[in-house]
C-alpha cells in the first residue's frame, strides 16, 4: 500500500508515494538520495539521523515519512554550500571535531537547531543537548569546543548562522 505525502526538503517541494511504514530517514536516503543523513541504530539512541523538521532537531529514524506531510525538512545537504563551509562546519574542521565523519551530519544538525534557538548557551547546555548524539571517535571534547566556537555566528546573525 502506498500513501501520498508532500513536504518540503531543503527548500524543494517533494510529492511522492511511500509505504506507511517507511521511516523519514529511509525516505530521505533511499527515495530522495539525500545520503548525508546517516542511520546508526534505528531506535532513536545514536542521533546520526538527526534532521530539522520545522526548525526542531528530530530523529528521522523515529519519524515516519508520512508524518512529515506538510512539514519543512532540512538535512545536512540543506545546511551546506559548495563555496564555503558554514560557521559550524568550519568550527568542526578547525577543532578536529570529527574523525570517521559518520555522526557528523547529525551532530551539525543538532547543534544548528540548538544554536538557532539558544545562541548564548553554555558548555553544560551544549553537552546536555549533544548527549543524544553518539560519537565513537572523538570523545566529544572537540565537538563541544567547535559548537561553542560557532555560537558567535549565530549571535551576530540572530539565529541564521548557517
Amino acid at each position, binding site marked *: 500500500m502506498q500513501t501520498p505525502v508532500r513536504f518540503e526538503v531543503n527548500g524543494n517541494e517533494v510529492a511522492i508515494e511511500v509505504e506507511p511504514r517507511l521511516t523519514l530517514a529511509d525516505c530521505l536516503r533511499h527515495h530522495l538520495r539525500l545520503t548525508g543523513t546517516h542511520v546508526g541504530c534505528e531506535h532513536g539512541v545514536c542521533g546520526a539521523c538527526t534532521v530539522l523538521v520545522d526548525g526542531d532537531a528530530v530523529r528521522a529514524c523515529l519519524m515516519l515519512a508520512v508524518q512529515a506531510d506538510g512539514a519543512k525538512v532540512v538535512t545536512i545537504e540543506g545546511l551546506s554550500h559548495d563555496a564555503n563551509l558554514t560557521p559550524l562546519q568550519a568550527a568542526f574542521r578547525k577543532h*578536529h571535531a570529527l*574523525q570517521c565523519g559518520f555522526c557528523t551530519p547529525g551532530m551539525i544538525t543538532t547543534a544548528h537547531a540548538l544554536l538557532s534557538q539558544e545562541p548564548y548557551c553554555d558548555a553544560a547546555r551544549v553537552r546536555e543537548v549533544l548527549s543524544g548524539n*553518539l560519537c565513537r571517535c572523538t570523545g566529544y571534547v572537540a565537538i563541544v569546543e567547535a559548537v561553542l566556537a560557532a555560537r558567535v555566528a549565530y549571535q551576530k546573525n540572530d539565529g541564521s548562522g548557517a
Partner: protein
Amino acid sequence: MKPNNALIGSPIERLEDLRFVRGRGEYVDDLTREGLLHAAILRSSVAHGRLLSIDADAARALPHVHSVFTAADIANPVPIIPMRLHPLPELRPFEQPVMAYDRVRYVGEPIAIVLADSAALAEDALAAITVDIETLPAVTGCGVSEVPLFDAQATNLALTYKAVKGDVAAAFADAPYTRREKFAVQRHTALPMELRGLMAEWDAARGRLTVWGAAKVPFFNRRILARQIGLPETSIELVENDVGGGFGARGEFYPEDFLIPFVACRVGRPVKWIEDRREHLMAMNHARECECDIEIACRGDGTILALRGHAATNMGAYLRTNGAVGARNIVQFMSGPYRVPNIDLAVSMWMTNKTPVGTYRGPGRFETDFFRERLFDMVAHDLAIDRVEFRRRNLVAAAEMPYALATITPYEHKDELDSGDYQATLEHCLEDIGWREKIGLNGKEIDGRYHGLAVSCFVEGGAAGPKETARLVLEPDGSFSVYVGSSAVGQGLETAFAQIAGDALEVPLERISGVFHGSTAHVSDGYGSYHSRAVVMGGSAILDAAEKLRAQIRLEAAARFGCAAEQVELVAGGTAVGPAGKSIAFAELAGDGLSAEGTFFNNKHTWGYGAHAAHVSVDPKTGHVDLIDYVAVEDCGRVINPLTLHGQVIGAVVQGLGGAFLEHLVYDEHGQLLTGSLADYLVPTASDFPSIRARVMGTHPSPINPLGAKGAGEGGIIPVGGVIANAVAAALSKFDIQPRALPLTPPAIWQLIERARQ
C-alpha cells in the same frame, strides 16, 4: 628524507573533513546499483543446538522475494574462514563456517540469507522461514565443561599460550614479598557508529566480481574470498569507501564477506546488505572477556622480581580471523613498560556459546594493564611505598633499550621495547594533573563525595609488518596522486599521507591532488590498517616511492636538457633545474604520467609510551563516580599531525572510559545476549566525561623506520581501566575496598562498599 618539513608536524586541518561536514562522505549504504537486491540474514536465536531442518519454501513464495539460500545451497563442505593472525594448526578446528550447517553455536550465527526487492521485504521474509533446532546446553563461561562444543575435540580449550622469561621459580623461592590476586574484565565491543555493510556485483561478461564496503585488510580478505568462491584474485576488486569507524572490529573477514559476494554471483544481480544495530551487537566481534589469577614477587624496596599466573579468555563460539590476538597480548604485555626480569604467564583460550571475539583497540593491553596496575597499587600499599615511586623504580630506563619482553610460545615469538624515556612521560603526566597539589585530597570526603587520584604507565605496540606499498603518480597538471595499501577507517589517513608525500616531494599540500587508499585496485599489494601500523608502514612506503619518483623526474628532465641526471636539481615547489639555468616545471615532464611504486619492509615494532592520571570523586551512597579530571600523556615518536593525534588520544581515552564504567555485553545462563540495543549497551555520551586532557609528545623518534613515527592509534585506551579502578580504590581507601572487576558501574561500586561495611 629532505629536511624541508613544512607539513609534517603541523596541525593541518583535515582534507577529508570537507566532504564529511557537508554530508558528502560516501559510506557503503550510500551506494546503489541498477537492479539492486537487498539481503537479510536469518540468525540463530539459540546459543547451542543441533540444526535439524530449515524450511524456506514459504519465504521463497512471498511476493518480492527473489531467493533464499541456506548452507545446503552453498557448497559441501561449507567454506571455513581462516585465521589471519597467528593461524596455528591447533586452532584450525575452531574456525567458523560461513553459515551454520549442522550445529549452531551462538545467538546470531547465520542460518539463511534472503534476497528481496527491499531490505524491509527481506526482513519480513525471515519470519516465514521455519528452523528446527534441538537445543543443547549452552556453555557460557571459561573452564572444563561436560558439554563439548566441537565433536572432534575432547575439550573446549583451544590453546594455551605461554609467556616466559628468566627463572620464575627461583625468583619466587627467594622473594621477601609476594601477593596473589584475581581480576576480571568484562566482555565489550568496539561499536563503530557505522554499521557493517557490503554491496557486491558480478559482471558475468567480464568475469569480474566487485565488492564495496571493504575496510582494514582488503587485500587479505580478497585472498580468502578468491579461494572460497573459486576465482583468481585478479578477477575480484574490493573497494574501500568511507568507513565509519573501525577500532579493530570492522573490516575483518566475517561470514557475510563470503555470503554477499556469493549470492550476488549466484543470482547475477547486485546485492546489498546492511546490518542493523541488534545484528551488529550479536554478530560483530566481541572482545575483552578475561579473568586472571596472578602473583607478583618483589623486594622490600618495591623492586619487581617476578610475575607468574594464569589467565582465561572467553573466545566465544569460533576462532575468528584475529581472535587469538587479545589472549596472547594479555600475557606478552603484562609487564608493560616495567622491568620484570622473570615471567611465567599462561593464557587459556576457552570456546563458549557466545559471539566470537576479535580485536578491539588495544587488544589484550586494556585488560592486562588493568590487572597489572591494580596489582601494583595493592603492592605499593603493602610495602608502604608511594604508588608513584613504586612505578619510578620499576620503569624500564632509556639506557636499557632495546628491552626484551617475555617470549611467547607456541611458535616462539620474541619482541623488545624500542626506545623512549618512560620516566619523562610519567613526570609530565603528574605535572599536568597537578599531582603534588591534589594528592592531599586522596581519600578525603568533601560534600559527601570521596576523592581519589591514580596514575598508570603503559606502552603501545605498533607498525606490524611485513610490508606496505605506495604508488605516487605525477599528473599532467603537475600535481601528485598518492595510492597506498593502507586502509582509512576514519583516522584521517588522507591528510597524514598528503603531509608525508608533500614533504617528501617538496611540494605544498595543494599539489597533492588525492590520496587513494584501501581498494585492491590501487597498488600491487597491501596490508591495511591494524596494530597501529598505517602511518608508519604506509608513510614509510610513500617515502620510498617519492625517492623513486624523484629519480624518474630527474631522468626525464635530464633527457630534455641533454645532460646527466646527476646534473638535475629538483627545486621545492615542483621545478627541475638543469645546467646553464635551464628549468622545466614538473607538469611539463608528466607526459602520459610518471609513476613509481615504493615499499617498506619491517619486522620490528614501534613502541609509543606514556602515562595517564585520573582524579575522581565517588558518592558512597549511590556508587556514582564523577571523573573530575583526566590527563593522558603519550610520546609517539615523530608526530605527523598533532591535531589529529591529539584527537586520537582523547577519543581513545573516552572509549576506554566506556569500558571502565559502562560497556558490558551481558548474557544469561542460556547464552542469550541481554544487551542487544543501544538502550541496553551503554557507551559514553557528551555529558559523561567533560574533562579529558591530552599532551602528545615526539621526543623519541622510532629507530626502526625512516619517518621516525610510532603507531599511535591505541595508546589512549590501554591504561584507562587500570587508572580509573585505582582512582576509585584510592578514593574509597577508608572502606578498604579493592575493585577487582570491570565495569565499575554505580551498583558494582555500591556493592563493594556495602560488603566492606558488613
